[in-house]
């Protein structure tokens, strides 16, 4: 098992290298750079500009720039954010927390509700509740998450039940530890629901379809025929088999979450990576863009690895093949 994990990590290195090259190519191709604002500024002299250019390596060949950047990254130095004037690593690390908080709660929300609802729908096929859930799922899949987020904010502004954006309340520092956690949760509900609904609806339909497929299999008929309690037939056999394809969706779901978070974070003013990426692009903050793109790729690689390990955990056949 450990060997498998190590092999996967080694295999992901060329992919990450490719991502960094792609990201660097995109940024180098972009017209202008961060110093453009300084060049327009008449109070900054040519000498100062030259100094800055040398400092940030803009006077060198693109390949040299890339290799220099890569060398720095390998030693843990992700460069310096031009616009925020702090090391990129600190900045991204600070934002990563908010994004992970959002992503993980969203995953719990969509998987924790989607899968049970899918099982319920499959076991009550064609019933009124099944049809109601199917209808809601179609709405959930089709509603654009930023529109949903706007609707949520509209609701929050009208009723005052939820905060209108942000990560913490103004009086956050005065709260007790439990109060602080509650405050986080209270703020995360909006982004979580709007970001997670599409995933939840998709999961539910997928789970329903898979479970219905499994319930038609012969082994289920056999288990019933030999008198196994219905509970065991469903939860020990059918559901266990139906969940495998769903687990492989985990990595894919993470990609959707990180991407979708760009819009949700923008609407809710959530200080996460998605917003950071947009701010960095607007400011042409080169090292910051590189770091966020690379980090998002790393997160995806980790997510896929986790999905595979999860699959090995739920499916003994795969566990057997790996070891």
């Amino acid at each position, binding site marked *: 098992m450990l060997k498998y994990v190590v092999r996967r990590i080694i295999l992901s290195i*060329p*992919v*990450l290298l*490719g*991502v960094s090259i*792609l*990201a660097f190519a*995109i*940024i180098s*191709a*972009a*017209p202008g750079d961060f110093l453009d604002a300084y060049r327009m500024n008449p109070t900054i002299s040519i000498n100062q500009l030259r100094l800055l250019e040398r400092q940030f390596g803009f006077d060198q060949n693109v390949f040299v720039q890339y290799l220099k950047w890569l060398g720095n990254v390998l030693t843990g130095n992700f460069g310096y954010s031009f616009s925020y004037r702090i090391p990129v690593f600190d900045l991204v690390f600070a934002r990563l927390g908010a994004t992970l908080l959002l992503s993980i709660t969203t995953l719990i929300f969509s998987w924790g509700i989607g899968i049970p609802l899918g099982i319920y729908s499959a*076991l009550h*096929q*064609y019933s009124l509740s099944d049809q109601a859930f199917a209808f809601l799922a*179609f*709405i959930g*899949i*089709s*509603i*654009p998450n*930023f*529109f949903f987020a*706007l*609707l949520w*904010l*509209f609701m929050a*502004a*009208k009723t005052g039940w939820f905060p*209108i954006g942000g990560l913490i309340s103004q009086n956050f520092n005065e709260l007790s530890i439990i109060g602080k956690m509650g405050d986080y949760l209270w703020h995360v509900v909006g982004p979580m629901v709007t970001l997670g609904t599409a995933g939840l609806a998709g999961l539910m339909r997928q789970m329903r379809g898979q479970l219905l497929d499994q*319930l*038609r299999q012969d082994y*289920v008929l056999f288990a*019933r025929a030999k008198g196994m309690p*219905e509970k065991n037939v469903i939860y020990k056999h059918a559901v266990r088999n139906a969940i495998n394809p769903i687990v492989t969706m985990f990595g894919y779901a993470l*990609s*959707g979450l*990180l*991407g*979708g978070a*760009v*819009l949700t974070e*923008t*609407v809710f003013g959530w200080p996460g990576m*998605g917003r950071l*990426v*947009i701010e960095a*692009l*607007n400011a*042409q903050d080169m090292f910051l*863009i590189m770091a*966020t*793109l690379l980090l*998002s*790729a790393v997160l*995806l*690689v980790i997510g896929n690895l986790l999905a595979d390990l999860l699959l090995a955990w739920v499916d003994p056949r795969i566990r057997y093949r790996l070891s």
Partner: protein
Amino acid sequence: MKKKDIVDNNTLQSTEISKEDLFEVKYMSRWQLVWRALRKHKLGMLSLWILAIMYLIAIFADFLSPSNPYEMSHGLSYAPPSKIHWTDDNGKLTSPYIYAWISERDPDTYRTTYTEGVSFESIAALDRNSGEPVVFREGEDSVKAIYLTTKSVDFAVDAEGNRAYLGSAEYRTSQVLKLTELDILERTIVNENSSKNVLDALSPTRYRELRNIGTPVKVVTERSIHRVFAQKEEEVREVVIEAIGIVNEIIDSGEGDFEVAKELLKELEISPAIIDVIVEPEISEYATQKYPIKFFHSSWSYKLLGIIPLDFHLVGTDQPSKLLLFGSDAYGRDVFSRILHGARISMSIGLLAIMITFSLGLSIGGAAGYFGGITDEILMRTTEILMSIPSLYLLISLRAVLPTNLPSHITYLLIVVILSFIGWPGMSRVIRGMVLGLKETEFVQAAVVMGYPSARVILRHIIPNTATYIIVSATLSIPGYILGEAGLSFLGLGIAEPSPSWGLMLSQAQSIKAMTEAPWLLIPGIFIFIVVMGFNLLGDALRDALDPRSLGY
């Protein structure tokens, strides 16, 4: 599983095909069968209708729009949807009409509120001053417009009914009255206020007259029509209002009558024939200026289908009113017309992007799967790299590479290209997988053995077998492109102002203030939702219809 469900399944499997169906299955072509299966799918047909309507809207957006989507109106920022009236002044049913919005700005909060403003086509009144009945009617007797001066007086009243006037009377001259206060034409409107706040605010140092009466018990505001004017010559509104002000001042101060005022106007180099007046009007009849909703109304010109120059539209109202079915945005542009025009972008971008994605996906996936080896390796590693950046991150990064100050149609094409660039890796991986499977089938092997060139084998033998997957997958991935464009535009990285795009329109609703005061700005989101839902439902229906089991084989 419950017993009922088992029975259900059994009946499903053993459904007998009727004779008619058997005939159809035997003699209908595959696509006829697919169409037959699709027609039975209620939601699928519904979505097909919805999408067809949306495409028609996109094509005929110019004709269907009541007003020009690019036309800004300064006085109509965030104006609510027009109220459509169905009954005339006497309460009888008529053809629908609207009144124009007038805006009022609260001097304390700077909030703009809109009320329906009414101007007058004609006013007939008895002039108590001269004892003569006078009729002003627009267009008759060279009357250009009718102005009203309203008078409002505040006074405090004590327990015995003694009055103390609070300041001097206020006069206001305007062409329009609020629809809600039309009563003023018939009688003096009296507002009584006896709330504690108002009474406490009365200070004898400010209003000397208060010393002459007892403790005030209420404050009364009386509003009435003071004077009616007719504008008789073409002139700027401001000048007319000024002239009216002068006339009012002369008459009210008792310095002279209308003739004296005319002399003064002449001295001020304003044509004295510009206005006529009813000094003390007692209004007997009036007709309000209504803006009927006209069908095939002629206004701004456009080219239907890009060829036929036309200038009439399905519905519309005359200037200066603006028919706002879904309200207006920050610049006073008609949201409804912008939504119709935005349909062009959203409805076409998905189709274009999917075509490019599929050409890329099919050729790259096909090549990788068919040739295998090093080609496969390189292409698949490339897709892996592209797929390991979250798609929206990649989307906005790529957009940022490209210059932003481009003409709107170039931006549109760029977005299509970027969206396809994001889409092809996933598509080609699936196609590759299918090709790998098909390559081993006997009919492909036979074609290879017969010495057909690779291109022919791929195009004629392999690709047609992926058609089912392609059709379903294309329909189901169109929403992704529509959402991609909307998301980009929402972030300000896509279609730029002033072009109408649903995502861009939604970005105006981002601030809480705009959202709560002008919730109609959220309507474009409903349209995105409907279109996305339509494609999702259609894709599902197509998947069912293309499933061989549903065709009756």
